């Protein structure tokens, strides 16, 4: 993950940054010791100075207030702003099958656990409902800006999105008939800026990890036809494991949904021993 805001004070000498940073630190300590409103103000000023010396940004910028105030004016994450995530995974299925699966919005909630729903508006537009940090539901509209079958799909959020994002998924034929490499690149402005991103990280809801696990589930669905799970299995503590008691799979549901076609496998019949 890259920093939220690029350092803006590169042209200042290191000495100046150190002096200002140390003054900031001194102000924080001095203000803290006064334990009064004036002290609080002095400390706040100290925080701002220290922050500037480290990042070259004023405090409100670092906290993502810029992102919030300018919402709606921008359709894309500005250059060099936001968090970038890159992930790739190898899937042992033909490239057209992987592309087709990915191109169907209805499949998304099967492997993206934080996606509650994706509604197709038209061929190019969709509305996303996503679980945000601390149980908040976030939503936004997305537009496909480039779609090259079996090569890539790219999108951006449009309108006043809760999470502004832009990204692309590239599909590449793996060497030697070994399926497909799927590469996701994404830039986004988290709600609440850096602070929001830090909180999300603490809650274990970091998009980088989410994307990694989403891709792992995508691979499991494409290859194995199901996502590995132990939810609801017996244990010797209390009753069954997992708070949510739900059946993940039933014959009825499977017939309704129609699953990914899978080849029949019987492994135990193979053998190298003679």
């Amino acid at each position: 993950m890259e920093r939220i805001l690029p350092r803006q004070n590169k042209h200042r000498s290191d000495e100046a940054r150190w002096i200002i940073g140390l003054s900031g630190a001194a102000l924080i300590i001095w203000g803290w010791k006064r334990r009064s409103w004036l002290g609080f103000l002095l400390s706040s000023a100290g925080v701002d100075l220290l922050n500037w010396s480290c990042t070259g940004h004023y405090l409100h910028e670092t906290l993502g207030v810029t992102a919030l105030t300018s919402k709606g004016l921008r359709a894309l994450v500005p250059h060099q702003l936001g968090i970038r995530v890159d992930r790739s995974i190898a899937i042992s299925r033909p490239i057209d099958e992987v592309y087709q699966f990915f191109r169907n919005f209805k499949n998304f909630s099967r492997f993206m656990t934080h996606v509650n729903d994706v509604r197709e508006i038209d061929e190019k537009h969709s509305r996303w409902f996503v679980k945000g940090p601390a149980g908040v539901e976030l939503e936004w509209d997305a537009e496909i800006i480039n779609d090259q079958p079996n090569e890539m799909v790219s999108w951006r959020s449009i309108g006043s999105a809760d999470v502004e994002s832009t990204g692309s998924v590239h599909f590449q034929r793996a060497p030697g008939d070994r399926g497909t490499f799927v590469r996701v690149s994404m830039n986004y402005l988290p709600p609440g800026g850096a602070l929001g991103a830090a909180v999300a990280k603490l809650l274990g809801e970091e998009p980088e990890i989410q994307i990694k696990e989403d891709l792992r589930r995508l691979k499991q669905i494409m290859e194995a036809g199901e996502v590995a799970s132990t939810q609801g299995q017996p244990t010797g503590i209390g009753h069954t494991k997992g708070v949510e008691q739900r059946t993940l799979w039933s014959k009825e549901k499977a017939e309704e949904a129609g699953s990914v076609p899978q080849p029949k496998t019987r492994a135990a019949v193979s053998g190298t021993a003679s």
Partner: protein
Amino acid sequence: MKALCWYGSRDVRVENVPDPHIINPRDIIVRVTLAAICGSDVHIYDGYIPSMERGDILGHEFMGEVVEIGQKDGLQVGDRVVVPFPIACGRCFYCQNHLYASCDNSNPNAASLEALQGYSSAGLFGYSHLYGGYAGGQAEYVRVPFGDVGPLKVPDGMTDEQALFLSDILPTGYMAAENCDIKAGDTVAVWGCGPVGQFAIRSAFLLGAARVIAIDRFPERLHLARRANAETIDYEEEHEVVARLKEMTGGQGPDSCIDAVGLEAHGTGIGYLYDRSKQMLRLQMDRPTALREIIQACRKNGTVSLAGVYIGLIDKMPLGVAFGKGLTFKMGQTHAHRYMRPLLEKISGGQIDPSVVITHRMRLDEAPEGYRIFADKEDNCIKVVLRP
């Protein structure tokens, strides 16, 4: 149903737990007719394995009768099957190349294992949450994922006791011997004569070894090795194992050496597992001794085959000696699936009888006592099987 659950170090109990049910389409449910306690279960019992949770159901060596099938998959309700210990999807790159223990798609906790070790492996039955947290088979019923890949039908004429060890220790011993790339006239030395060592000895002969030399210190285990025509070294009597091996092989050393001892020190997350690691050092203090001896004893350009589990870091390995001799190292978790059918045929044909290692037959209710006897190597215990 009744199941053997883990509650802490040296604390396992048979408890009443809910029956398992189908969770995923390719699952099947098996009514267990016979299960075994594995040497690696003892490390869970002794509290060395991280990421165990109170109430976890143990057991990765089991067989039984299919009672429920998710998606139609070729098996029938009522089929008698033996189940391999790694859980494998059968369709990822590794499974397609018959490297089932490296399956990409069977571990629900792959992310945690990756964070600790930098890679993830297949899920295993009843073997900690890093390896998927799957409920094991020392129970009346067990859910088996990917029922269309792992379980192998057992023919009518074969007893449960003959078929059971296809689940783990027989393929493990066989793969250890296969990894030795045995040529006619070869001498194979086997360190450790527990159940895996016993099967490695027998497999080495099956694969054409002229001589097998077995090393252990328990008389009953050495006796069982001699019954398979192995020559034996009791390392408590014979302090210079390397010198003795050289002397027995005209000064050359064995052509290949199998380590059926291992470290069994699972988990390398040094920060996270710091306390556990300190405990494990106690194991590291003596167990790499076998591996060092192997490197010293093996003949030039010989093969070293590791069947015992190693995970942690090892100090003072004579790598220079290994390089100088041009040794080949082969190792890894057993890809049990690929050996099951060929070995089943060997059992049917009378070439190998896996039931020879069984010394204790108990009911599932008696499993806690079985663990204690096996862990303390009391009563000449080599292998315990449990009938629910």
